[in-house]
């Protein structure tokens, strides 16, 4: 029968991004401002 379970058990590890990484993404999201003017998309970062 074909072996369908992972060859390396260690690869199946539950990990989570650090709170600092999540906070960075949230700050980026708050700072990112996108405007559409005359068909052009302008991106600005308020940080």
């Amino acid at each position: 029968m074909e072996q369908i379970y992972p060859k390396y058990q260690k690869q199946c590890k539950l990990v989570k991004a650090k709170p600092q990484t999540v906070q960075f993404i949230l700050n980026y999201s708050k700072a990112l401002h996108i405007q559409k003017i005359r068909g052009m998309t302008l991106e600005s970062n308020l940080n």
Partner: protein
Amino acid sequence: MQTQIDDAFLVSNYINGDERAIEILINKHNQRLSSYIYSKVLDSAITEDIFQDTFIKVIRTLKRGSYNEEGKFLPWVMRIAHNLIIDHFRKNKRMPKYEGNKEFNIFSVLTDDKLNVEKQLIKEQIDSDLEILIEKLPKDQKEVLKMRIYQDMSFNEIAENTEVSINTALGRMRYALINLRKIIEKNNIVLTN
């Protein structure tokens, strides 16, 4: 199905300016996405980087209004992460990165041929001592030795410049070295690094 509806609702709220919605989405899918990335790259720091880049792409796409809601938010995010993982491996293939471990340290193979500060100081001291010793040689020997050692001239060129035969130039060099050794021995000078 419930999850997909929830995601679609949160995405819609986020597009309409609710920043809290993206926080819920990130926290909701954090473990699943991070574990997926980790299973491919097997490095916590790279996992964090790819996770961050994935959501930066997600945020930009959502804010630009380019996202097409088909109730497949998570598969879409996973696809972005998957592409970034491929980019990561491609980049590493072009620029291989070697890291040391307990058994192998890259610095045991790679060496810096520059002298350390102490040896550099000793070398400078020896060079200056040698200059003083050379000044004590007779003029014709000093001239040949300087041309040969400091100006890297061939004996043919030295002979031409000093208007003597090549044998005379060779002889002067020989006597210059002999006399230099004599001065060094006489004064008990140690010239080693």
